[in-house]
C-alpha cells in the first residue's frame, strides 16, 4: 500500500515537471474581470501582397473596439468644447485628409504599418502611441464629458471590460479603428492582382517609377508606397523653424529638411502636397522632382545621382505617364467604404 502511495506521489510530481518544462512559451491565462464581458476578437483582414502588419502587444483587436473607435473618430465629444472631431480634418471623401491650410494633414490610410507618426516622426511606436498623443495632447479630451454618456460607458465596457472611460482607453479604441482602415483596392492593385488591365501610360509610368528614370521606388516602396523613413528631398536649401523637419526630433544635422515619406495611395485625392502643402497639383510635384531640387549638405543621397542633381530631367510625355501611374493608386472603394464612414 505504501509503495502504491509512493508511485502516485512520484508520477504526480513527474507529470507536473513535464507540463512546466514544456509550456514555457504558452500564453498566460488571461484574467477575465467580468463574466459579462465577452468581446469578439478578430484578426485584421490584410491583403496577402502587403507586408505583415505589426501586431499590437497590449491592444487586441475586437469588433467592439473597432466600433467604439469609429464612433469616437466621428464624435466631436473628444474635443473639450465639442468643436471638432478627427473626421473634421480627416475627411473620407478626400482620402481621410483635408486642406485647412498650414501644415498638411497626413492622410489616414494603412497607418497600421507605420512606426513613426507626424511629419517629423516625433511620435514613435504604434497606433496606440499616436492616438494617445491625439487624445491627450492634441484634443486634451475631457473624459468626464464622455463619462456622463451612458451609451459610451456601455460601449467602453463592451470593448475593454471596464466602463471607466480614460484617455488611454479612448486611444486604444481609436487605434483599433484606424488599424482597420486599409486601402488595397486601387486600380493598381486590381491590375497587379485582379482582372483589370493597365493603360499603356500607366505601364510606362510604373516603369519610370520603378527604375532609375524616376527613382521613386527607393522611398515610396510598393505596395505601401512609403518606406516609413525620413528624407530631405530638396524642397529648400535653408532650414528654419518647422522646416528643419526630422532634426527637431533627432538633433542630427543630416536630418535637417527631412520629413516622413508620405504614402502615395490615394494621392490624387490628398492635395495639397508636401509637409507644408506648398504644391497644389501633382504636376507641380513632378516639376519639383524634375527641375526644382535645391541642393544642400543634407540632401538625401538618393537625390544626388550624377546628371540628376537638380532634377530627373523627364520629358513632358514621361511626366504625364508618371502622373497616369500615380492616378492608378486611387482607391474609390476606400473612400466610400461604409465601414469607415460616420456610424
Amino acid at each position, binding site marked *: 500500500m505504501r509503495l502504491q502511495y509512493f*508511485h502516485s506521489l512520484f508520477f504526480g510530481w513527474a507529470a507536473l*515537471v513535464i507540463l512546466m518544462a514544456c509550456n514555457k512559451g504558452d500564453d498566460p491565462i488571461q484574467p477575465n474581470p467580468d463574466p459579462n464581458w465577452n468581446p469578439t476578437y478578430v484578426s485584421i483582414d490584410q491583403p496577402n501582397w502587403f507586408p505583415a502588419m505589426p501586431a499590437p502587444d497590449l491592444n487586441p483587436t475586437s469588433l467592439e473596439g473597432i466600433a467604439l473607435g469609429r464612433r469616437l473618430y466621428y464624435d466631436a465629444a473628444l474635443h473639450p468644447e465639442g468643436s471638432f472631431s478627427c473626421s473634421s480634418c480627416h475627411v473620407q471623401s478626400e482620402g481621410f485628409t483635408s486642406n485647412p491650410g498650414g501644415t498638411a494633414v497626413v492622410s489616414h490610410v494603412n497607418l497600421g504599418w507605420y512606426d513613426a507618426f507626424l511629419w517629423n516622426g516625433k511620435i514613435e511606436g504604434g497606433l496606440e502611441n499616436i492616438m494617445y498623443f491625439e487624445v491627450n495632447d492634441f484634443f486634451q479630451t475631457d473624459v468626464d464629458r464622455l463619462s456622463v454618456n451612458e451609451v459610451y460607458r456601455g460601449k467602453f465596457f463592451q470593448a475593454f471590460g471596464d466602463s471607466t472611460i480614460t484617455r488611454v482607453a479612448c486611444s486604444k479604441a481609436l487605434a483599433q479603428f484606424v488599424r482597420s482602415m486599409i486601402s488595397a483596392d486601387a486600380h493598381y492593385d486590381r491590375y497587379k492582382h485582379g482582372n483589370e488591365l493597365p493603360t499603356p501610360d500607366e505601364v510606362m509610368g510604373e516603369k519610370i517609377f*520603378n527604375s532609375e528614370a524616376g527613382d521613386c521606388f527607393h522611398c515610396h516602396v510598393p505596395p505601401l508606397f512609403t518606406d516609413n523613413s525620413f528624407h530631405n528631398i530638396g524642397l529648400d536649401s535653408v532650414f528654419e523653424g518647422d522646416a528643419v523637419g526630422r532634426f527637431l526630433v533627432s538633433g542630427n544635422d543630416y536630418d535637417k529638411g527631412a520629413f516622413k515619406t508620405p504614402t502615395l495611395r490615394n494621392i490624387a485625392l490628398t492635395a495639397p502636397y508636401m509637409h507644408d502643402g506648398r504644391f497644389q497639383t501633382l504636376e507641380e510635384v513632378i516639376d519639383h522632382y524634375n527641375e526644382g531640387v535645391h541642393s544642400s549638405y543634407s540632401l538625401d543621397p538618393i537625390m544626388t545621382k550624377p546628371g540628376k542633381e537638380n532634377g530627373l530631367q523627364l520629358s513632358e510625355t514621361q511626366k504625364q505617364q508618371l502622373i497616369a501611374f500615380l492616378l492608378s493608386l486611387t482607391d474609390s472603394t476606400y473612400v466610400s467604404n461604409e465601414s469607415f464612414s460616420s456610424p
Partner: protein
Amino acid sequence: MRLVLLPYLILAVVLFSSCSKDEAPAVSIPVTFQIEHFVDGASLALDSLKYENAAGNLLSISRLSYYLSDFQLIDEADVIWSFPQPYLVDHAHPEDRMIEVGRVPPGQYHLRFLVGLSPSLNQPGSLPNNLRNNEMIWPTMMGGGFHFIKLEGHFLNAEDKPTGFTVHLGTEGFTSPQRPEEVVKIGMDHPVITLRMEVLEWFDTPTLYDLNEGNYSMGDSVLMRQLSNNGRDAFTVLP
C-alpha cells in the same frame, strides 16, 4: 520487483525526450556570430563626416544595411556544413548584429558566406513578406529580387561641396563572397565568433574607388562590379 521499475524507466525516457525534439545531438555547438562594423579601428559612427577612404574622399555614412547568407563551415575533413538562410543586418538595429546560424560539432573550420543573396533566395517572394525585407526590394523591372547592400552617406566632392553617395548592389553576379583566411574555432570555450566588417574596404582593393567618379551604383554594372569585388574582403574573423 523488476516490473515495478518498468514505469520509472519509461518515465526517464519521457523526461529526457519530451522537450528536445528540435534540438540537435548533444555533441553539436551553436554557431553564433557577432557582427561588428569598423572604420579606422573604431566602431562605425553614423553621420559623422570624419572618415577618409583610400581615394581620399572625406565621407560620412548614414545607412548600412545588407544581407548575409549561405554560411558554410568546412571542417578539417573537408565536410561542408551549410546554413543557407539569409540574415538582414542593419547598423541602426543593434539586435541584427548577433546571429545564430545553426550547430556544428566542436572543432576548427574555414568559413564561407555571402554578402548578398544566392540566386535561389534572390527571387520575388522568397523572403518573409515583412516591412524590413520589403524595403530592400530591387524592382522587377531592374532585375528583381532584393538589394544586397545599401551603403549610403555624404562626402565632399572634388569641388569641396557636400553631396551624397549610394552603394546599392543587387541582381545575379553582384554578391560579395567572403572567404576569411582566419580559422574559426568552435567550442564551448568559443561561444561567439566575431565577424568584423571594415566598412571602407568597399572602396579599396582591387579597385581604388573614388566617389567623385561614381557616387551612385544602382543600375551601373561597371560600378556594381567594382564595388562587389572590393567587398569580397570586407569581413575578417577575429581571433
